[in-house]
């Protein structure tokens, strides 16, 4: 038994940091993106439409996962930001559509404005007609709102259930506001009938944005900030004692997640061609929480899996079992909550981690210390062990970073 291999065994057994982008994740993401991106070539338009929507929703679920799974903020009003993004884009497309098609509504303003007695687009909304303005608004205002909310909530140490209740109330308020000010928002009927971007190229745009946001989230959660966030989630008092300004971390991740939700909303509006008050309210918010929970809230890829699984099952079951699909969905949720409290990816990740530990233990028990198996073990370590460099692993050097 050499010193190096003994160290190898011990190091693997004691502390292990996942690499930022494990090999399997890169291949997995590439495969999924390739399937989705080429789907329109061999698939049907209807399913393409669903897939695009699922991707938008998965970004939304990711934003919930970031604040809930990684920072311990349970928001039941995340659809506020999704809805804001969606409304900015929908309004913009609707205004330009009305202006370009004067015969459609007998005027150059959207139909719902005319019904509500407006004769021209209100000055404050007119600039939205340019899509660039709408995109800037989409990036700026939801983030600003999240910042204001974060400052008045997290700085006052309001967390947990109270935070959930406040966000829920906010979602209800925004929903009521949209229904009430129907001359500007389309009210209960929502905004529909505008130029929709429902084609393969826009699907690629959605996918590109999704990959970017999922990648950024992975970077964020596996950086130093991510580690601090997890410690804040697990024990905020102790994190504070250790000298971290807990509220600032929470505000930061909340703003980031809200901007992400707004982007998801904007893509959704352009893709679907319809936005209504339901897209800003508590129901969508809670649905998002479910998607994140089913997929695995403390993982980055979990929300994607969860959204596709739950929404896919919903659409599949509602046409196969129109009479009982809600019952089946309910049972599915109970099953997941009961047997996989960490969600699907959380549970898988846990069992993999346990398997690794067991394996590392076996290795430390001299199983792979010498002979041909040691080479295999080192090769594998080189690709999977983020604790040490590639060459360190291969040569069995210690080279620990932590």
């Amino acid at each position, binding site marked *: 038994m050499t010193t190096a291999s003994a160290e190898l065994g011990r190091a693997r057994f004691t502390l292990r940091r996942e690499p930022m982008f494990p090999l*399997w994740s890169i291949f*997995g993401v590439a*495969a*999924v993106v390739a*399937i*989705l991106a080429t*789907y329109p070539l*061999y*698939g*049907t*338009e*209807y*399913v393409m*439409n*669903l*897939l695009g*929507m699922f991707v938008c929703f998965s970004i939304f679920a990711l934003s919930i996962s970031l604040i809930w799974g990684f920072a311990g903020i349970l928001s039941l009003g995340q659809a506020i930001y999704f809805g804001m993004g969606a409304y900015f884009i929908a309004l913009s497309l609707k205004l330009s559509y009305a202006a370009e*098609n004067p*015969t*459609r*509504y*007998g005027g150059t303003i959207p139909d*719902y404005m005319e*019904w*509500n007695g407006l004769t021209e687009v209100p000055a404050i909304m007119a600039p939205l007609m340019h899509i660039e303005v709408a995109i800037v608004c989409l990036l700026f205002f939801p983030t600003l709102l999240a910042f204001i909310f974060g400052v008045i909530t997290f700085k006052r140490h309001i967390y947990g259930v109270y935070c959930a209740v406040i966000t829920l109330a906010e979602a209800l308020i925004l929903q*009521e506001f949209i*229904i*009430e000010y*129907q001359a500007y928002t389309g*009210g*209960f*009927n*929502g905004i*529909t*009938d505008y*130029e*929709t971007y429902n084609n393969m190229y826009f699907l690629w745009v959605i996918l590109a944005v999704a990959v970017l946001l999922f990648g950024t989230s992975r970077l964020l959660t596996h950086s130093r900030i991510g580690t601090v966030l997890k410690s804040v989630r697990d024990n905020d008092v102790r994190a504070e004692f250790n000298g971290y300004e807990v509220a600032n971390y929470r505000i930061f991740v909340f703003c980031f997640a809200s901007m992400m939700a707004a982007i998801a909303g904007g893509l959704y509006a352009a893709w*679907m*061609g*319809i936005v*209504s008050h*339901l*897209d800003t309210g508590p129901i969508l918010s809670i649905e998002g929480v479910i998607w994140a929970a089913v997929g695995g809230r403390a993982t980055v890829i979990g929300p994607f899996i969860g959204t*596709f699984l739950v929404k*896919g099952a919903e*659409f*599949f079951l*509602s*046409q196969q079992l*129109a*009479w009982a*699909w*809600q019952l089946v969905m309910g049972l599915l949720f109970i099953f997941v909550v009961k047997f996989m409290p960490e969600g699907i990816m959380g549970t*898988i990740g846990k069992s*993999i981690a346990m*398997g690794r530990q*067991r*394996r590392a233990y076996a290795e430390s028990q001299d199983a792979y210390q010498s002979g041909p198996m040691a080479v295999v073990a080192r090769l594998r370590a080189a690709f999977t062990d983020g604790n040490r460099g590639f060459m360190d692993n291969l040569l069995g050097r210690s080279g620990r970073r932590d």
Partner: protein
Amino acid sequence: MKINRRRFLKTAALTGTAAAFPYFYTQKFAKAEESDEIKVGILHSLSGTIAIIERSLHNAELMAIEEINAAGGVMGGKKLVPVVEDPQSVVRVFRQKAKKLLLQDKVVAVLGCYTSASRQSVLPEFENNNGILLYPTLYEAQECSYNCFYTGAVPNQQLDDFAPWVIDKFGPRHYLIGANYIYPKETNREWKALLDNFGGETVAEEYAPLGHTEFATNINKIASLQPDVVFSTLVGDQIVAFYKQFKQFGITAEDIPICTPITTEQEIKGMGPEYALGHYTSFNYFQSVDSPENADFVSRYKATYGEDEVTNAVMEAAYFQTYFLAQALDKTGSTDADALITEGLPGQEFQAPQGKVKIDEKNHHTYLWARIGQAREDGQFDIVWKSEDWIRPDPWVDLLYPDRDCDFTDPRVIERIKSGDRDRSGTIEI
């Protein structure tokens, strides 16, 4: 190595499932074309907030399809096959299910939607894919799409005769209450214009948020203002809550009658007949209409769906619009959408439970009868007034929009639709 294999299997199974998902999903829909069947989409919510009323429309349409098939089908023996979808009372899902029916199932037409919100959400889909929607609900009008046929009432068919009758019978001072969305607002606009015309006046006009069911302040106000009539355009659960609280406050129909173009037998069944007793509704159809077709319709419906069921005006329209479609298919002998829209459906007549009805040749709306009913102890209506003839639908009400009309036979509209413009409305300035 054992662990390694297990891990490999797990990963492979997961990736395989993920990769196969779209394939299975597509396969699911790849059904063989059956030439002796014609698919018809049924798009009404079977779950969610508006499921109660929409389920009755769904039932009426399925019953009509069964009857048509039993009588030998359409186009010389082909069967109508319903493709049922549940849009869950959510407009987004309405839109997606409409897309599915049009693109996957390639249905010849869709019978569907109840609220204006859902109709507006699916219309772009029908226009982009040149589908046909038959829409059975009364609605606020001011719309006419090439790809939609409206078999429910528009305001001029429910209000034009109702307003003078109410003013004449009860008096000119009206209190207007409605739900805060487009249908009540537009209806009230028309009602106020009619009041102006016939010498009435509005003492107050108030809107309650949708879903709001607490009316104490409104009823207090009614009690202090003492209007001659309450004109209500509340919808859904609000109707039940308002009638109940109105009676519990101590105002009876003899003191101040509630007049409305919305409350049907369905809502009265929901609240209990004692609360609606004596109040008035204007509609094209009531279950108590005395005609052989209606007696037949009601008994068949009860036999199929249960003795406790009541029929209502919207489901009557859902029922006869299915026949419109069947007759149009017979007439054109093809399932081509443009043939059905330009030749098949316009001008189609049917002896419906409410009387003879007809789709207007020009504007895609339907000639209907007007009736005024007073609610009885048994939850049915006494029909106290009936129009002498069917009433022509006018989607752009003359009183409010004198210089607009809807006419699909106008050369400008034909040109617009031929040119492939995304704008497929039949609205013109005259």
